[in-house]
């Protein structure tokens, strides 16, 4: 069997000031999977979710199935025909900073819809944990990943790192 080192950092960004979105473009097709590790910061209070989009597609071509727990009960829900893959649940405002890990499987193939496995949680007030599976109904290779929130800007201190995993 062949063996080779992999799981490499591709890029990291930490916002020094508020921004509407973060976009990683010209993502190399060198790898098999992409892993995203992030911490959400919202620019202002209110109901905010951080969402991920591929290749600039802002259409309703995404959907999710959720499993979550809030400390007293567990539940499951779906989002169909969504405009992105949501990583934070349920709402994140100032002072609530969900941290998430996302596995984007086989992102560079051109034969299957793209599937992401998400794990997200935060502690403290209204703490919760969730895992969700999201799909982008598109077979194109992913070469751009962007992040935005639903009702405000991304806040200073928000950080996202992309890793690449290459199979033998």
């Amino acid at each position, binding site marked *: 069997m062949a063996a080779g080192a992999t799981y490499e*950092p591709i890029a990291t960004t930490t916002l020094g000031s508020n921004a509407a979105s*973060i976009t990683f473009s010209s993502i190399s097709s060198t790898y098999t999977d992409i892993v995203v590790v992030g911490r959400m910061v919202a620019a202002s209070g209110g109901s905010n979710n951080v969402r991920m989009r591929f290749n600039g597609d802002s259409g309703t071509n995404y959907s999710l199935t959720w499993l*979550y727990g809030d400390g007293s009960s567990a*539940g499951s829900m779906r989002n169909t025909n969504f405009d992105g893959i949501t990583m934070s649940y349920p709402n994140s405002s100032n002072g609530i900073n969900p941290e998430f890990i996302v596995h984007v*499987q*086989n992102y560079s193939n051109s034969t299957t819809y793209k599937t992401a496995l998400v794990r997200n949680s935060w502690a403290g007030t209204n703490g919760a944990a969730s895992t969700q*599976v999201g*799909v982008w*109904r598109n077979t194109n290779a992913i070469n751009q990943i962007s992040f935005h929130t639903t009702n405000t800007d991304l806040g200073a201190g928000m950080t996202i790192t992309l890793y690449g*995993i290459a199979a033998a």
Partner: protein
Amino acid sequence: MTPISLGIFASANTTVGTSYESIATVTVGSGGSANAEFTSIPATYTHLQIRGLVKGSAAASGGLLCQANSDTGSNYTRHELGGNGSTAYAYGAASQSAVNLYGNYDNLANNDFPVAFVMDVLDYKDTNKYKTFRILSGMDKNGANYGEVFLKSSVWMSSSAITSLKFYIGGQNLGQYSHFALYGIKGA
């Protein structure tokens, strides 16, 4: 507010890790395959991770399964926390004939919606303990039935070192483009 845009190129890679290594990959070709198997897994790592994207081949129920060292006996246990879009549920079973990675009576076939999974096999070569599998898996079908997400664990009740892992779907072949990648994680 101004968007932040970062151009990324392969040359931007900053470091190369040495503790997480690719061991082997299986991609299912046209016509499908009964299984995807990794054999002669080296004992040079501490843990294994298998990452996959799987499609079925028939409009029939079946679970995505894995057996260690070709053991087809009832030597596996199963616990899981799952969500089907409306209900969260827990399930457990003893005396299973394989590790269950996704579903049981689910239709994994056809269409373009694959099952994605990440499975960790902890201390796979330790001959002093049973082997534990930890799984994150899911498939979403934009509201259609059989879309679920899971956190699972299984135990293979054997203290033998794992040298092979076989993946298959109960009752049908793996579909074309199914992809399994085996990685080794070294200890200090």
